[in-house]
């Protein structure tokens, strides 16, 4: 048996022994997801137990180094672990922007102290993070950012406003882009971390077309941020942000379709068999969907071996999010009048319609499709012009 197969057997055994039965049933909604953090209320004893056991084993962040709360697994082992979890239907023990976004950025740009401190907190589910990038009127145009941190010697005093801050009203800390030099448009931004309980931080949820949302407006009024809470160099926060946005785009491009290649057509056969033109749209969609899955697989394989163009994730983000929007248009068409319902129990609170509307943001958040096409055109295709 290869080392990897040995690991697989061990992981399997550990999961079978440690994952509570309830945590092997699918999460029914956002309320079943464990986000951790200071104010998190566990939905059940099993949820708490599962987090604690994973935490002890380093399995909340299996591929992070042990020193920072991980299990130190290799990429291959991590993949095997995920496969075994999927087979048993294990829920994710901990979801977190800290795991998906801040952690990788800290690993690359953080000091040793920051890694031990912040990554440890993330791995243990102690601190829930949110991301402060977009501002009203800036959107995809990060360089026109206004939020300003005035240098006061050992700290900055931050004033300004962020928008589209996911879960800002539930998060404990924020990683935030703040202008620290007004004279340099492109390089005058720093990447700061601070506590959302710092005096002067307030949040206001944003209602979206799909209904209530995780997004907030976040306001900073003379917020004091100690100097050691910067990641990376002063005025070079854009490098950290770009790196992190790459991760976000990968995550979002993964949304292209529920992570799977299973056609939604089969379950809808009764409708599609009577609607030949709609069935044809579904058929052409399935071709695109299978293509995107293969494309994503190829991209990940090339990325891992360093062969992918650094800007390639922009292409995947564009293709994946446009595809997901198309999928949801089809889901609405196939669902017909029933999919239009907005509140009824029958429609699970209008879940089809709300999901459909929610996907419209996919091609806006994390960089619009238009910005992605600009980047692909300029950086990969090397088209001329500004």
């Amino acid at each position, binding site marked *: 048996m290869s080392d990897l197969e040995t690991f697989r057997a061990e992981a399997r055994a550990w999961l079978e022994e440690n994952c509570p039965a309830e945590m092997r049933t699918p999460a029914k909604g956002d309320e079943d997801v464990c986000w951790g953090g200071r104010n998190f209320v566990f939905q059940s004893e099993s949820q708490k137990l599962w987090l604690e056991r994973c935490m002890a084993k380093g399995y909340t962040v299996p591929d992070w180094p042990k020193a920072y709360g991980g299990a130190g697994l290799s990429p291959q082992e991590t993949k095997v672990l995920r496969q075994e979890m999927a087979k048993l239907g294990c829920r994710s023990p901990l979801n977190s922007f800290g795991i998906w976004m801040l952690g990788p950025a800290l690993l690359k740009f953080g000091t040793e102290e920051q890694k031990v401190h912040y990554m440890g907190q993330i791995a243990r589910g102690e601190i829930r993070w949110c991301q402060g990038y*977009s501002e009203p*009127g*800036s*959107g*995809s*145009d990060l360089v*026109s950012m206004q939020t300003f941190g005035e240098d006061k010697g050992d700290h900055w005093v931050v004033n300004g406003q962020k*928008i*589209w801050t996911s879960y800002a009203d539930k998060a404990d800390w924020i990683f935030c882009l703040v202008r620290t030099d007004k004279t340099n448009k492109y390089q005058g931004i720093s990447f700061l971390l601070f506590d959302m309980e710092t005096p002067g931080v307030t949040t206001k949820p*944003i*209602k*979206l*077309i799909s209904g209530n949302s995780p997004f907030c407006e976040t306001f900073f009024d003379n917020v004091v941020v100690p100097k050691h809470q910067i990641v990376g160099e002063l005025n070079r926060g854009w490098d950290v942000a770009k790196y992190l946005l790459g991760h976000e785009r990968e995550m979002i491009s993964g949304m292209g379709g529920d992570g799977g290649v299973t056609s939604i057509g089969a379950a809808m056969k009764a*409708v599609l068999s*009577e*609607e*030949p*033109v*709609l069935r044809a*749209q579904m058929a052409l969609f399935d071709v695109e969907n299978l293509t995107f899955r293969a494309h994503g697989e190829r991209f990940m394989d090339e990325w891992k071996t360093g062969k992918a163009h650094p800007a390639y994730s922009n292409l995947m983000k564009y293709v994946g999010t446009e595809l997901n*929007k198309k999928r949801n*248009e089809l889901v*609405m*068409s196939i*669902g*017909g*009048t*029933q*999919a*239009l*319902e*907005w*509140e*009824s129990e*029958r*429609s699970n609170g*209008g879940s089809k*319609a709300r999901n*459909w*509307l929610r996907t*419209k*943001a996919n*091609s*806006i*958040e994390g960089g*619009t*499709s*238009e910005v992605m*096409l600009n980047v692909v055109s300029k950086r990969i295709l090397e088209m001329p012009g500004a």
Partner: protein
Amino acid sequence: MAMTLNDDQNMLRDSARDFMASEAPVTHFRKFRDMGCKDGFSHGLWKQFAEMGFTGILIPEAEGGMGMGQIEAGIVLEEIGRNLSPSPFLTTSVAAVEALKLADKAMRDRWFPGILAGETVIGIAIEEGVKHRPEKIACVAERSGNGFKLTGQKQFVVQGASSDMLIVAARTAGAAGETDGLTLFAIDKDAAGLSMEAARLVDSAMAAHVKLEGVQVDADAVIGEVDGGWAVLSKMLDAGRVGAAAEMVGVGTGAMDMTFDYLKTRKQFDRVIGEFQALQHRAAHLYGEMEGARSIVLKAQSLMDEGHAKAELYVAAAKAKAGLACNLAVREGVQMHGGIGMTDEYDIGLYMKRDRGLNEFFGDAYYHADRVATMNGY
């Protein structure tokens, strides 16, 4: 006829435009939405529609209406669409009136006055599944006493729970899938055995799930001929379809205009975003799609008004094209607005929701494209 509006039609458009913009703009819609109104529209506004003469626009002059055609109804509907004005106009004054025009005098006398007065609302109870399949109607009306007893269920009856009467299509002969053997009935909302459960839709309209459990009606509840309901149904549906298409021209145009205004004012990367050529080309393309939709809808309306043999083909094409173009307009609208377009606070998302409802109403673009193919002989 010429494919331009004549002077009378232009006057009607101006007055409908002024009326909707002042009496039923998007803020009016928001108000009724946010109060969780159980009807989804304002009875007061419906009365005002009557005062303007809109409610009887298709009712013959001899019976107190304006005696106009689909073009004129469409002019009103376009302004309704542009302002998202909530009302029972499309179902009651367009679809139901077209059916009732084929009913006997007694029935017309019973229902037209209330419609003219803006007091009566009528629901169209056709759909039985999630997609529009009128020929598949399975709801049964069996002979019983002096009349019929109806048993079955209906879906997506827009404003059904607010209706005074439902027009119900049921099968008096034949089997699901056949067009012969259908009969249309006018059924009072209080009829014994009739029950409704209202559900709010994505566009905040209310639609009812209707149960008919042995609903007894007299023979005089029949609209048109027994077993010959397909003719009445087709007329009613085509009026509803071309009307929905006209409303979508309004919704799409409203969304498009709002978006073009946004492109001219919103700045990013130090430039007004309307300067970006990629957006300009998409805007110009969208404009062409909406202009095409406007044209085919006008063509279908005028063929219906002429009683032309090709009207059915053009109505199907118009419903399909208006659906595709309006859908493009709202998708481009939300995308070009960026993050702000995703917020409930901005209007563009409301247009996207309304488009969805109208696209489904009486058959979506794919259904009607399929009918175009069938009518074109393949």
